[in-house]
């Protein structure tokens, strides 16, 4: 019985450890997805500007405060707008932007279908 309890406890601890590990927020991943507003075509990760350094500090602070990746993006989008992120969230304003690739894909498929069918008929 005692061995069984130790086994259960051990597994619970391991599980919690793995769970904690998977919840770690990768600061570098966030930096790469943030646009440096004062630089020419650079991300926050690539830039050494004053602004980028400050954003890095703020993002690290928020990670230490236990904020999730989404919460950090939401905060920065609220302050600087969607332009700040390279991978903007799905909203009604950019609905078309998200749907267009699928529409083009579908249209291309239909086009190929008709082309092949026409060739076969000839």
């Amino acid at each position, binding site marked *: 019985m005692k061995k069984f309890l130790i086994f259960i406890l051990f597994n619970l601890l391991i599980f919690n450890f793995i769970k904690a590990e998977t919840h770690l927020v990768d600061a570098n991943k966030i930096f790469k997805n943030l646009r440096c*507003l*004062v630089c020419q075509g650079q991300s926050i990760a690539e830039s050494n500007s004053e602004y980028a350094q*400050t954003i890095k500090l703020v993002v690290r602070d928020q990670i230490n405060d236990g904020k999730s990746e989404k919460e950090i993006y939401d905060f920065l989008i609220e302050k600087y707008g969607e*332009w700040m992120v390279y991978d903007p969230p799905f909203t009604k304003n950019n609905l078309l932007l998200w749907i267009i690739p699928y529409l083009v894909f579908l249209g291309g498929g239909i086009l190929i279908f008709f082309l092949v*069918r026409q060739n076969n008929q000839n």
Partner: protein
Amino acid sequence: MEKRIFKLLIIFFIIFFLGVFFIALKKSSIYDTKDLVGNRLENINLNHFYEDKLITEKDIKNSDFILINFWASWCAPCRIEHPFLLELNGEKKLKILGVNFKDKNENATKFLNELGNPYDLLTKDEFGKNSINFGIYGIPESILVNSELVIIKKFIGPISAEDFKYIKMILNK
């Protein structure tokens, strides 16, 4: 029938791609803060410049309009806008909140002693981290908000004669 669909699809794709290029090329790729107008400033926590206390929303909400000005002694354009700030200091409806950005206390004090102090309330942001909460990305920058702390306008760069007129116009409305 199939030929017609085929032709229509090709026309559709040509129009679609021309449309995408037309819209994309017309769109400015320079960061613009106009979308932030109407947002409300929240979680204000600034360190008082002279005293060891925090300035929060409650401390600045007691005015019809508040102009939050981010400045530093090392910032040359801040000197250009300073006369406008001094002139705005006399406005009854307006309170000017200064945020000294990434600066040394002694340099900032020297700057104000030399040019005059236009601020009703002066705070400091030593590491620039609090300024991110205001959407600041360079200085000088100023934000005009109403008593509910809703952004009326953001001024990127030094306050110009035009900006000064605009602020006066808002105050005299």
